[in-house]
Structure formats: C-alpha cells, structure tokens
C-alpha cells in the first residue's frame, strides 16, 4: 500500500538530529541515510509506541463496554437477593457493589477495582468474579492453543500446496472448500462432526468435552473435536494468506535468481520463499490467537465446555453486569497482548520493519 498520512509520533526522532537543516520532505517519512541513522532505535520506538497505545485503546474499550453494559435492563440487587428482600436491603447491596451514583462514578469505582484486583462479585454465581473468570480463561486458552496447534501446520500446508498449483483445479477446489467451511457456523460443523463421530461411529463420547478436568491425556482426547471445529472454522483466511504470500515469493525475481544460480531447493524454500511468504501470515495468526480465546463461545456452548466464552454468554443471558464487564475486559487485554506478541515476532522475522517505516 502507498504511504499515506504518516501518524504523528510514528516518525520517531526523525527530524531532531538535523540541526539547522530543514527537515526532509515529506515530513515523518525517513528515507535514505536518515533511515539508516536510526535503525537501532526502531525496535524500541515501535514497542514503546505500542506500550503507550495499548493502555489508551484498552481505556477506550473499557468505557465503551461499561457504558453498553449499563444499558442492559434488569435490577441486579433484586435478582441477587430475591423477591423477599426489603427495599433497604436491596439498596445496601447496591451500595456495597458500587451500583449507586452516576455512570461516571460507577465507572471509576469499577476501573479502580479492576486494576487493584478487586473485580467484584458475580450476580449469578455469587462468587468473586476474578477466580471464576481466570479459571474459565485457563480452559479457553487450553482449547484455543490446541486449535491453534492444529490450525498453523494445516494452513501452511494447504496454502503452499495451492500456491505451487496456482490456477489448477486442485487450487480452486481447496479455495472453495475452505471458504464453504468458514462460512458455516461452528455449531453446524460441530453438530455434523458430533453426529458422525460420536453418534454413528462412536469414536468419541457425545459429552466428551464436559470433562475438562482430569489428566493431560484425557483433556486432549476430550478436546479434540471442539479444537478441530474451531480450527476448521478459522482455516480459510490463514491458508489464503499463505497462498498469496507464497505466490508472491515464487513469482518474484529473487526467486528466479535463486533457482538460476542453482541453489538447492530446500534452501530456496527455507531462505527465500518461507521467510517472505510467512510475514503476513504471522501477523494474521497473532490476531487469531487473541481472538480465538473469546470467539470459542459457540464451540464451548455446543460441547458444554467450561470456557470464558460460554461464561460470558451465560453472563449476558442472565444480565450479570459485573461478570460481563470484567470478562469482556479480559478478552480485550488478551487480544491486545496477542497483537504485541505479533509485533515482536514480525520484528524478529522481517528485517525491513527494523529499518523502514511501514505504515498502512
């Protein structure tokens, strides 16, 4: 993409070392020697920028979430104490749970609590929401990681096979199949797999995923079907990215040069094709890992798996504002951390990021 609107701050210290000389044109786009001069500060500048951006985005997300959840109708005090409690008791409960005062006051009360580890008490489960959320998060993370481990090699293989067979019938067939699989909701794929493998073939028990506890082997066995469903649903885009990246790399002049100068094909694939083809894919996969943890709500509900997504669905269904606000914030934090991790991986993989200002 063309370099448009370089953002303020993105240029780092580009214009400071020029002394009395006029800054280079266009401002904020280091070219030639000015880019070389600050190559070592690039990594720190990028990470530093992220570390400032992430709390700001998180703050914006928290305001949006808190405000939206305030709109959820319902009387949590009355729900928690039951219909026989007096008005005074309900009011006292509201006060102790920070439910009185203006939205701003309640927001600040909640925000302070969130950062000091006092996340409030779930209205529905009547236990502190922090251990509840973190316990479910662990289950979700395990499932997401399993799905991710399945997703990465399969998308790499399919994408590169497609790239080397570009334009042929098999390329088109894989594209259509993956697209169809990703447009079908997870619960449909899940139900079809359940009927085939659990009901007809009896290879796995129907309620298998419910036993998320137990030793590692049992957990892996129980979670295979849910993880496969998640991986299948998210396969299309990474495979497509690998395909696009690989096609770009094998049609590039440097690839022809490498072939013509007689490099062994293993070396060409490793050093020239893979490195270039993987850059956009890593970026995407990082975002997926962050997203998978929250997006598994459907699979968790289908397989009755005690994960964070299913917990948040219950919280939304039963109007549990405390649980919902805290849980949504946790998914936001995870998505942003995944993004930071992606940046670090990209810096390690792509030397151009260290030297150049790669804006949108």
């Amino acid at each position: 993409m063309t370099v448009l609107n370089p953002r303020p701050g993105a240029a780092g210290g580009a214009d400071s070392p020029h002394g009395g000389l006029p800054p280079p044109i266009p401002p904020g786009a280091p070219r030639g020697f000015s880019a070389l001069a600050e190559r070592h500060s690039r990594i720190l500048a990028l990470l530093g920028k992220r570390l400032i951006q992430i709390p700001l985005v998180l703050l914006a997300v928290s305001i949006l979430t808190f405000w939206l959840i305030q709109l959820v109708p319902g009387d949590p005090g009355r729900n928690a104490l039951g219909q026989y409690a007096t008005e005074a008791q309900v009011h006292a409960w509201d006060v102790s749970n920070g439910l009185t005062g203006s939205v701003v006051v309640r927001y600040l009360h909640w925000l302070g609590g969130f950062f000091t580890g006092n996340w409030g008490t779930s209205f529905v489960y009547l236990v502190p929401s922090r251990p509840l959320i973190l316990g479910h998060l662990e289950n979700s993370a395990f499932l997401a990681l399993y799905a991710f481990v399945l997703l990465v090699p399969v998308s790499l293989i399919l994408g590169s096979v497609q790239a080397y067979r570009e334009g042929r019938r098999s390329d088109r067939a894989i594209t259509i199949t993956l697209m169809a699989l990703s447009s079908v909701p997870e619960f449909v794929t899940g139900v079809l797999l359940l009927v085939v493998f659990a009901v007809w073939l009896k290879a796995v028990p129907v309620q298998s995923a419910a036993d998320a506890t137990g030793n590692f082997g049992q957990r892996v066995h129980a979670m295979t079907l849910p993880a496969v469903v998640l991986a299948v649903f998210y396969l299309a885009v990474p495979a497509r990215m690998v395909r696009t990246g690989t096609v770009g790399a094998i049609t590039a002049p440097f690839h022809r040069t490498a072939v013509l100068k007689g490099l062994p094909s293993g070396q060409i694939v490793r050093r020239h094709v893979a490195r270039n083809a993987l850059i956009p894919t890593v970026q995407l996969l990082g975002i997926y890992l962050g997203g998978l943890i929250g997006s598994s709500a459907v699979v968790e509900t289908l397989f009755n798996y005690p994960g964070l997504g299913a917990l948040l669905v219950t919280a939304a269904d039963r109007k549990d504002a405390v649980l919902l606000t805290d849980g949504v914030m946790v998914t936001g934090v995870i998505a942003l951390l995944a993004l930071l991790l992606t940046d670090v991986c990209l810096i390690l993989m792509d030397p151009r990021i260290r030297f150049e200002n790669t804006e949108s």
Partner: protein
Amino acid sequence: MDSMSELGTGLGAIEGAPTGGAAGIAETAGAGAGRRRARALLRRPTFVISALIVLFWVVAALGWHLFGLDPYGNSGQALAAPSWSQPFGTDNLGRSVFARTLAGADTALAVGPAGAVLATILGSALGVIAGYFRGWVDTALMRVFDVLVVLPPLIFLIVVVGAFGASVPALIVIIGVVFAPGIARIIRAAVLAEMGKKYVTTARLQGESAVRIMAAELVPNVLPTIIIQATLSLSSAILTTATLSFLGLGQQPPSPDWGLAINQNLDFIETAWWTVIFPALAVASLVVSVQLIADNIKETSS
C-alpha cells in the same frame, strides 16, 4: 495500532485486488459489460446451483404457511424417525422437523438481508468519505474502528445484544453497525486506489463538488467491490443471527429458527440425530450458497 490497520488494508488488498481492474473496465464499458458479466455468471454451475438454493429458501421463508406446513402442532409422536408421513422425523414435542426446517427460513432471512443492506450503505459511505478526504477524517475514523475491532466480534455482539435486546429491528441495526467498519476499510482501500486516477483529478479541475465526486464518480467505480462486500456481509449476517439464536441470545422458543432448533435438540442428538441434522444442513446450504454467489461475482468481475 498499525498492525490492525495493516491487517485491515491487507485483507482489503486481497478482497479488493481483483476489482481494481474491474473498476477501470466499468469506467469505459458501461452497460454492455454488465450484461456480459451476467451472462458469464449464468454459465457457472456453482453460481446457478447456489442461486437456486437461495431462491428455494426465499420461497420457503415467504410461503411456508401457504403450503399448509404446521411448525408448531403436535403430531402425537415424539422423536419419531424420518418416514413417509414425517420426511424429517419429529422433535421431542412431536412437531414436524420438516415443517420447522422450512419455516425456519423465515427467521433466518428476517434479519440478514436488511442488516447486510444497512451495513453496506453505512460502510460504503464511511469508506468513501475516509478515502476521499484522507487526512484527519480518515485517521479519526480508522482509530474508532481500531477500538471496535479489539474485542473478538462475537464477544462484542454478545455485549451489544445484551444491551439493546434481540428483537428483529434491534438485530438489523446491530448487524448494520457492527459490520460497517469492516466494509468501510475495504471500500476505503478501493477508493484510495481510484483517487490516483485521472478522472478524479479531471472532476476536481472541472469544479465538481466533493459530494458529487464521491456519489457520481467514485461510487460507480468501486461498485463491484461494494456488491461483493454486500453479498459477503449477507452470508455473515445470516451466520451471526443463527449463532446468536444458538447461544440462546436471539430467537426464543417456540420459534422454528435453525440455530435455536439445534440448541434445543442437542440433548437428543444420540437418540434422534434428525432433529439437529436437518436444521444444520439448512443453515449450511444457505450460507454456503450466498458465499459462493459472492465468490462467483468476484471472479467474473475481475
């Protein structure tokens, strides 16, 4: 949040790539190209089959009560296996799964099309504005979108549906607003590619107003991209409403909605697989068909 916007434009580049050329063709050819494209579409078997499947579900949605189907009545036989009198069997309340599956098209198509149209109009308008004005308008819009895409989409939807409810009008607005940023990004990328072309400069030199350039010059040229995005968002809108129903946050019993039907009948999957398989196949056939239609439009417009 560069990598987010990079991802957005990266995906935009993939989605939008084939249409960059198409816009150029459309610019010169006009109506003849449209007819040629329609004929090319009708020659593709996947397009024709998909269109027929979508047509089938539209007819089912609009006309199920005309065919004398009863999705609510008890046939007297609970969890009966598929037979001549009950082609898809019956559910735990003795209701005909056949009638319920056909009637389920009604709720599946109640939200999706309107939501997709709203999302397309909103997203295209924002995308064209961001791409045309660039500068701070563009930056501000993209930063707002960055905040909206931080949360996993499903989690965001759960919160919004919790706040505004899941009535049909509320869902249409929610789908429209939630899907608009993604469309806006892709349209923005397409508009940015158009902005470098001579006809925009010419229009500006002629003194055409910004509104006129956007509506009369840019929109027709990015129209193929807009149509593809509209079709794709229709597929995701149907998927999303079905998912919300499955999670118990959308349609409520006794609605014959497909997502809800699967949720309600999960307990019987071992003894009566037909209660979940037919609604599942119905959702799958509809969303895959819409997706394939989008894919075919994309292929023929490049």
